[in-house]
């Protein structure tokens, strides 16, 4: 058995999560819930300024607070602080109150320095520098193909647009953190992570012990979205505190306030884009000058795992003649990290907004314009199916032609995600009673991996999934990579498949039966005198592949008197190769869209230009969509078993904000050029507020991109490296 069967008993069907009952009853034990004997609370002391030098921290004052068992510095002094909230020290104590008291007891010696927290100011020549040695703007990450200048010159129609997106926070329901027991020799961590092995390696490295002496467990975790790959400063500090308190377990879970400062974000993006088409409406030329801002650093260089300032350009409908000048800009704010399809939602917002601009200039239906320029047959099909579901032909009107105070609009956008699987191993133990245990060192980040493992095994063995116990989330299980890049399903499913096939062969050999699947399984297993064990691994082949497409359509109503955007309906058409579980796949689409709604309409980490703090470090003013903000979501899944398993967590999130922005522009006849689209921006774009903040931000955006042009013509020596 080399590939997926032609017909399925268990896959591609709606299967409830195996851990659903545990989750809804509270029995599921998250890193937050683990309570080992004698555990201590812990908290982090953070920099109260956005920039400056901390030369003294009174750790002894913390240690004198009753109940405090350990206090450690995050880094040796003096510390150059580059953002408000940077980790300085941590304490562990018997009670949370003792931790609070200890944090307040520690006097700091701080020399404040000037700072810059607004991206559009940071690019200007006289802005305070985040790093003394360099301007805040980086060298270019340039690309050129064809002859863009000539092609733009020759284009029959050209359009140009300025766009920007805000910094978004991951805001997982379970904050970052760990409970760690480390006696100086052996380390055990219960982590809220997307990668148990990455955390193991990070903690073992920081504590200077062999990898074999560190173990990380993640039975359940409450979301990460790209921000929970590494141990992070909070993991390192928990391990140090545990050691300093004589090996007592230390629970260091961040507060919601902490969560907004130092554990990553989706970088903001700023761009001037230009598109040229020939007289038939085929895209011929593309130009982009832009920059992203990942705070003071990228995730890779700031204990964040990964994630930088780049975003895709000239994609989905690429022009053969293109010029891209993309840079990064640093500010005094927490670092970026990978965030669900890094760079893609902003990149697609920019690209798809420009597409609608061009369709308008061409006097062409924007759907028709896309179909004309989309070289992917799968996505063209998805666009056509989505158009039918939303009633595009009957309901689409030209921008701004909706009558009345409340205006209706339709918009669409496409997506692509192309990361393949890999790096996964699984082990199967078959018991003589026919029951099966599968172990894989992956983790379930909420997407349903713990349900996928037994389902895949049940399909291969053709047995009742209730006979199968899947065990994941432990570095004592066979190595599997971090859950990111939508790689988990296409990595884990083939490894489990392979292990089950190998187990089946062993059972066949031992039992002397030819086909042990299905009805034969128990009989064959009964012939075993002891359990058999088989291994499996991900291999290049037809079990998994890469390349998930998607198209989303949005219907909105916008109140032109209040500026309020009311989402009426979203249609999402996506493919992910072979669908493992259509129920959890749908959940992925719903979740991705809801997160996209957040980015489109609400989410914006707001930095204070006066003090340099994050102004909205809570759910009161960092606004996430609530259930009342979610419209009907119509999910259409295309099943391509012949393509093997492809992940879909990211592609389903990519086009939502772009489709919403296009629908709003279609309703109003005027485009909101920056995300999120708030009532204030709508009223401003409709000319009701004069030269307000939004209008100023657009002129600042133009100025910032002019500055990039200037910088491009100067020596690049004083510039920092591009933040990847």
């Amino acid at each position, binding site marked *: 058995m080399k590939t997926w069967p032609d017909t399925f008993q268990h896959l591609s069907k709606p299967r409830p999560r195996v851990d659903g009952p545990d989750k809804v009853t509270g029995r599921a034990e998250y890193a937050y819930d683990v309570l080992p004997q004698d555990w201590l609370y812990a908290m982090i002391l953070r920099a109260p300024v956005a920039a400056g030098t901390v030369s003294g921290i009174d750790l002894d004052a913390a240690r004198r607070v009753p109940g405090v068992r350990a206090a450690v510095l995050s880094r040796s002094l003096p510390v150059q602080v580059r953002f408000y909230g940077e980790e300085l020290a941590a304490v562990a104590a018997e009670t949370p109150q003792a931790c609070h008291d200890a944090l307040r007891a520690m006097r700091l010696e701080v020399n404040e320095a000037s700072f810059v927290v607004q991206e559009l100011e940071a690019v200007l020549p006289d802005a305070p520098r985040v790093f003394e040695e360099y301007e805040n703007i980086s060298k270019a990450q340039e690309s050129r193909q064809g002859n863009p200048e000539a092609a733009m010159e020759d284009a029959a129609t050209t359009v140009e647009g300025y766009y920007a997106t805000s910094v978004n926070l991951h805001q997982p329901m379970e904050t970052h953190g760990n409970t760690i027991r480390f006696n100086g020799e052996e380390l055990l961590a219960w982590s809220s992570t997307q990668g148990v092995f990455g955390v193991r390696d990070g903690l073992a490295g920081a504590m200077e012990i062999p990898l074999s002496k560190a173990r990380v467990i993640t039975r359940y975790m409450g979301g990460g979205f790209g921000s929970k790959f590494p141990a992070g400063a909070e993991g390192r500090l928990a391990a140090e505190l545990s050691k300093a308190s004589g090996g007592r377990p230390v629970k260091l879970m961040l507060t919601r306030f902490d969560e907004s400062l130092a554990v990553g974000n989706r970088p903001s993006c700023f761009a001037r884009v230009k598109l040229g088409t020939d007289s038939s409406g085929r895209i011929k030329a593309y130009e982009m000058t832009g920059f992203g801002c990942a705070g003071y650093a990228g995730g890779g260089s700031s204990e964040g795992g990964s994630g930088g300032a780049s975003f895709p350009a000239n994609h989905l409908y690429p022009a053969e003649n293109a010029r891209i000048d993309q840079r990064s800009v640093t500010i005094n704010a927490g670092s970026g990290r990978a965030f669900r399809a890094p760079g893609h939602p902003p990149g697609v917002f920019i690209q798809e907004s420009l597409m609608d601009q061009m369709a308008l200039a061409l006097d062409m239906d924007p759907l028709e314009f896309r179909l004309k320029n989309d070289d992917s047959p799968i996505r063209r099909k998805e666009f056509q199916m989505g158009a039918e579901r939303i009633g595009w032909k009957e309901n689409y009107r030209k921008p701004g032609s909706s009558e009345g*105070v409340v205006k209706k609009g339709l918009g669409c956008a496409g997506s692509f995600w192309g990361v393949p699987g890999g790096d996964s191993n699984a082990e199967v133990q078959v018991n003589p009673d026919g029951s099966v245990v599968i172990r894989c060192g992956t983790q379930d980040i909420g997407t349903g991996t713990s349900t996928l493992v037994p389902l895949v095994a049940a399909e291969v063995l053709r047995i009742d999934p209730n006979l199968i116990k899947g065990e994941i989330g432990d570095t004592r299980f066979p190595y599997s990579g971090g859950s990111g890049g939508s790689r988990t399903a296409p990595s884990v499913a083939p490894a489990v498949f392979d292990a089950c096939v190998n187990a089946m062969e062993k059972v066949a050999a031992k039992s002397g039966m030819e086909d042990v699947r299905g009805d034969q399984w128990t009989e064959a297993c009964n012939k075993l005198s002891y359990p058999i064990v088989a291994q499996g691994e991900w291999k290049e082949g037809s079990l998994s592949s890469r390349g998930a497409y998607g198209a989303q359509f949005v219907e909105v109503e916008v109140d032109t008197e209040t500026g309020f955007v009311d989402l009426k309906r979203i249609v999402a058409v996506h493919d992910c190769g072979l669908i493992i579980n259509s129920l959890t796949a749908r959940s992925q689409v719903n979740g991705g869209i809801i997160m996209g709604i957040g980015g489109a309409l609400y989410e914006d980490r707001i930095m204070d230009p006066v003090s340099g703090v994050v102004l*909205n470090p809570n759910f009161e003013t960092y606004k996430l969509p*609530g259930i009342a903000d979610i419209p009907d979501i119509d999910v259409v899944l295309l099943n391509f078993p012949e393509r093997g398993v492809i992940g879909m967590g990211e592609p389903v999130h990519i086009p939502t904000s772009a489709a919403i922005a296009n629908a709003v522009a279609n309703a109003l006849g005027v485009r909101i050029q920056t995300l999120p689209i708030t*009532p204030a921006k709508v009223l401003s774009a409709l000319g009701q*507020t004069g*030269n307000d903040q939004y209008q100023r931000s657009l002129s600042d955006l133009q100025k910032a991109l002019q500055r990039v042009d200037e910088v491009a013509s100067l020596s690049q020596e004083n510039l920092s490296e591009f933040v990847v």
Partner: protein
Amino acid sequence: MKSFSYSQAQSFEGAVERFHEASASRYLAGGVDLLGEMKDSLLEPDRLVNLKGIQESDTIEAGDEAWTFGPNVTIARLEKHGKLRERFPAIAEAARHVGSPQIRNMGTLGGNLAQHSRCWYYRHKDIQCLKNGGALCYARQGDSRYHCLFTDNPCISPSVSNLATALMALEGKVHVLTERGEEEWSLEDLYRDAWRNPMAHNSLAPADLIVRVVVPDAGRRSHYLQQSDRAEFDWALVSAAASARMEDGKLRDARLVVGCVAPGPHQLDEANAMLEGKALTSDLAAAAAEKLLDKADATPENAYKVPSQKPSRGAA
């Protein structure tokens, strides 16, 4: 949070006595605002005097001439009381838009009126702003998107009480137990100090206690509207309440009040007077609102608040 003593009051007078037994007491009712301020170390009381045990402090009495509300009536009851919604739809609607169901179940009428500023500078643990005894109103130089259109106060944080906006439109009165005895305050009185003292959230001295709210039942029609970023569980960006008696199709004693744009709910005699004796048309409402918002002193961040109030008044 600092340690504090806890005291259970049986009567309003007893609550005041217990309040004075410690040096930095606070009254506790629903605790929605107070406990948040304590957790953020904005307030560090040494005593909490619980008001919830006070007999008959959570009653709604429907009198012929006026309704009387105890201060411990929860927001949820104001939202769900059928007869109240019939007589004073503005109150029911204002209540419905407060926070989440959990907050409405805990939060009280008195607490909603006496709540402290939600300004993100005031609430930030590492910022000491003017309202907190610092030297600077950060919002004036920083981000004022949720701040006042009207105030002469150096602090530009607005009152965000939905119920205050509705009650002002209905000419409600707040009875306050002060060191001078029980006094009847208008809603203007309740927020007067917040217009002039940057550290004041309202006119209540620390030991003052709201003991009842009285709303005349004068046969007024009323309505309350708010606009937020999100559909539910969000503060109003702007809000508006209106009320009037209708006599032969003409407006009498009309009141037009806007919220979240000033240190207290805001109305203007000239704007109200424009409505007197006229038939309600959208043009008339628009003209009155224009007058009400005429003197708005917007910042680039909150300029949107001016146009976004127009539809509110039209519908009201």
